C-alpha cells in the first residue's frame, strides 16, 4: 500500500527523524493560512507540493515555490484540481522552502537477492534514484542490515562515510539511517525513502550550522503486514484508488484493471498472468488481471464477475480455473448464478480442469456455456469472441 508524503512524514517523525514542520491544505484558503504561519516563523519562501501517489509530480508542475501568502494561495489554486497522470490533486503539502546546501539520497528496501533489508545511499540526491542507478550505478552505496539485530551503528556509519559525510553530519546520518530502519520495522514497510536527505544551513546562537533533514518521504507498506497494523488502514488514499480495487479487497481477490477488452477470471497469480499473456499472444488485449485465490466459493465467483462486467470495455470473458483447493463445480455454480443476474450479455468461454472438473463440465453443459479444454484453446476462443463482438 502506497501512502502520501505527508503521512509518510508523520510515520518518520514518530521514529524521531528530523522532518521540518508541514501543513496539509485542501483549498487555496487553507494554503494561504498555512503559508502565513510559515512566513510568520521567518520563512523566506514556502513550497507547495501536490499530494499524489504517482511519481513525477515535480515535472508535471505539482511542486512550486511561493514568496508570499498570496502567491502561495494562487499556486495552491492552480495545483489543487490539477491532473497528474490521471490523478486529480485533492491535497497539497505546504512547508518552509529550505535553504539547501547539498542533497543526498537514503532509502531502505527489502532485498530479495540477499534476503535482508538493504540501506542504500548516494551523494547524488534530489534526482530520481532510478536514473542514478542507470547512469552511474557506482554512486549508489549499499549496506545489508544484520538480519537478526537490525541496522547496526557501524553499518550506518560505513554508509555515511561512503557518501563522503564527516563530522558533525556523520553522526546525524547514523541516527537518521537507524531511524529509517526503525520506521520500516514499526510499520511493516517494504520501502522507506528520503530524497532528498538535505544538508541545510541553520543559525544556532548566531553561528551558522549544517544540519541533515528529511525534505521528502516515501513509504510503501507490505500488504501482508496490514492485518496487524489497523492504525495504518486510514492512510489508504481512497481518492486515488480505483473503486474496483476496494471491492476486490472486500472479496479477497487480487484485481488489477488494464486497458483491453477481454475480462479474465483465473485462480492463482502465476496462472492469471499466464492467461493474460496468452490472450495477448493470440492477438487480444486483457481487460484485467484477476486472481480469485485458492478455494474460491460461488459468492466470490459472482463478485468477481460483477467486477469484470463493471468495465464497459469488456466485450468477452475468459474463465480459466485449474482446480486444486478450488473446486471446479463450485466455480461453475457461481458462474451460472452470476449469469442469471448479469445486467448485460457478454460472450464467455470457460475452462475448468482439476478438482471436480467432471461435475463442472456437466453443469456448464446443461447451462449451455461455451467451454474449452486447453489453456491455449480457451485464450484463442476468447480472442475470437471479442473480435466477433467488436464487429
Amino acid at each position, binding site marked *: 500500500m502506497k501512502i502520501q508524503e505527508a503521512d509518510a512524514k508523520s510515520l518518520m517523525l514518530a521514529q524521531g527523524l528530523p522532518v521540518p514542520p508541514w501543513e496539509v491544505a485542501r483549498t487555496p484558503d487553507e494554503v494561504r493560512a498555512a503559508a502565513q504561519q510559515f512566513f510568520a516563523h521567518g520563512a523566506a519562501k514556502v513550497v507547495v507540493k501536490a499530494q499524489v501517489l504517482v511519481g513525477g509530480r515535480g515535472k508535471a508542475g505539482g511542486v512550486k515555490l511561493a514568496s508570499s501568502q498570496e502567491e502561495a494561495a494562487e499556486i495552491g489554486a492552480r495545483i489543487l484540481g490539477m491532473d497528474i497522470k490521471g490523478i486529480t490533486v485533492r491535497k497539497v503539502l505546504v512547508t518552509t522552502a529550505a535553504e539547501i546546501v547539498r542533497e543526498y539520497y537514503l532509502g531502505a528496501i*527489502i532485498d*530479495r*537477492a540477499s*534476503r*535482508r*533489508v538493504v540501506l542504500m545511499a548516494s551523494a547524488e540526491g534530489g534526482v530520481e534514484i*532510478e536514473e542514478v*542507478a542507470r547512469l552511474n550505478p557506482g554512486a549508489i552505496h549499499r549496506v545489508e542490515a544484520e*538480519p*537478526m539485530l537490525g541496522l547496526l551503528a557501524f553499518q550506518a556509519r560505513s554508509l555515511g562515510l561512503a557518501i563522503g559525510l564527516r563530522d558533525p553530519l556523520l553522526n546525524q546520518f547514523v541516527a537518521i539511517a537507524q531511524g529509517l530502519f526503525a520506521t*520500516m*520495522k514499526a510499520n*511493516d514497510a*517494504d520501502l522507506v525513502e528520503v530524497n532528498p536527505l538535505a544538508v541545510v544551513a541553520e543559525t544556532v546562537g548566531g553561528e551558522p550550522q549544517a544540519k541533515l533533514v528529511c525534505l521528502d518521504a516515501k513509504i510503501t507498506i*507490505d*500488504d*501482508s*503486514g496490514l*492485518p*496487524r497494523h489497523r492504525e495504518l488502514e486510514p492512510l489508504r488514499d481512497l481518492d486515488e484508488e480505483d473503486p474496483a480495487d476496494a471491492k476486490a479487497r472486500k472479496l479477497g481477490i*487480487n484485481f*488489477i484493471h*488494464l486497458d483491453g477488452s477481454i475480462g479474465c477470471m*483465473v*485462480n*492463482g*497469480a*502465476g*496462472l*492469471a*498472468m*499466464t492467461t*493474460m*499473456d*496468452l*490472450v*495477448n*499472444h493470440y492477438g487480444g488485449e*486483457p481487460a484485467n*488481471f484477476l*486472481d480469485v485465490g*485458492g478455494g474460491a466459493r460461488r459468492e466470490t465467483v459472482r463478485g468477481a464477475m460483477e467486477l469484470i462486467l463493471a468495465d464497459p470495455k469488456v466485450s468477452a470473458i475468459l474463465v480459466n480455473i*485449474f*482446480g*486444486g*483447493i478450488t473446486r471446479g463445480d463450485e466455480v461453475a455454480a457461481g458462474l451460472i448464478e452470476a449469469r442469471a443476474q448479469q445486467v448485460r450479455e457478454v460472450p464467455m468461454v470457460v475452462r475448468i*480442469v*482439476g*478438482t471436480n472438473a467432471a461435475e463442472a463440465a456437466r453443469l456448464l453443459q446443461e447451462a449451455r456455456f461455451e467451454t474449452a479444454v*486447453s*489453456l*491455449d484453446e480457451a485464450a484463442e476462443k476468447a480472442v475470437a469472441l471479442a473480435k466477433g463482438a467488436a464487429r
Partner: protein
Amino acid sequence: MSILVGSETRLVVQGITGREGEFHTRAAIAYGTKVVAGTRPGKGGQMAIDGTVPIFDTVHEAVKQAGANSSVIYIPASGAPDAILEAVDAGIGTIVCITEGIPALDMIPVVEAVRRAGARLIGPNCPGVTSPGRAKVGIIPASIHKPGRVGVVSRSGTLTYEAVQAMTDAGIGQSTCVGIGGDPIIGTTFLDVLQMFHDDPDTDAIVMIGEIGGSAEEAAAAYAAANLQGVPMAAFIAGRTAPPGRRMGHAGAIISGGSGTAAEKIAALQAAGVRVADSPTQLPKLLIEAGYRP
C-alpha cells in the same frame, strides 16, 4: 532418489487439526507419504486422521517419539514464522511452509536462522513438493503427476499444475516438482533447486517456471550457463504483459524501476541455452527439442 522429499521422508504436519492441515494430510497419506506425526499445542496425546496419526504438543516430541525428519506447515501467517523456528530448533532437516501472507520483515531473521542451522526451508507461500510415486508434501494435486526423470521448479501454484499436467499428458514423468513460493523472501531459490537437480542421479532434464519480479531467474540462468550445459532444459516466464509498478497477486511479482521484467528473464535464459516457451503447454515439446528422451 529424487530431491527434498522421497521414500525416506518421515513427515510431521504442523497444524494437523486445522481444516487445510487435515484435508491435505489425508491426500498425502493416500499418496503414500509417511506421515508419522502431527502437532497441535494442547492436544498432545490425541490422535488425528481417524486415529492413525499421533498428535504431539511440540515438534521436539514428534522428532523424539515418532522419528520425524521433515515438516509441513499449515498454520496462519501470524504463527507460521514461529512454527518454522520450532521445526529448526527440533532439528528438522526439510521444512515446507505452505502459509501465505507472512510479512516479509518476519521472514528475514527466519531464513537466516534456517541457514545457520543448516536446515532447508521451502516457501513460504508455496504449493509444496512432490516426488511422484514416492511422497507428496503440500497441496499439489496428486492426479497431475507421473513418475519420471524431469525435475520441475516453479514460483507459482496453479501455473505449475498446468505445466506438470501438460508434461504428464505428453508422457513425460517427473522426478520431483518443487514449488518455491511467490513471496519476496523465500527459503529456497531457483538456484538452490537447480543445484539439487544437478546433483540428483534421478533427474535428467529440468523445467523451470518463473515470473516477473526480482532477479532469481537471471541468477538461475547464469548457473545453468555454467553448470547445466548438456542437461535438456525448458522454461516458462509468466507476466510478459504485466504492467510495471503493480503487484500481480504474488507479493514477489512486481516490476519495479524497470527491472524484473519477463523480457529480461527470457533473454537471460535464452542466452544460457534454455528454451523458453510461449505457453506452458509447449514445455514438453521444447524438452524433446532440447534432446530429452522420456
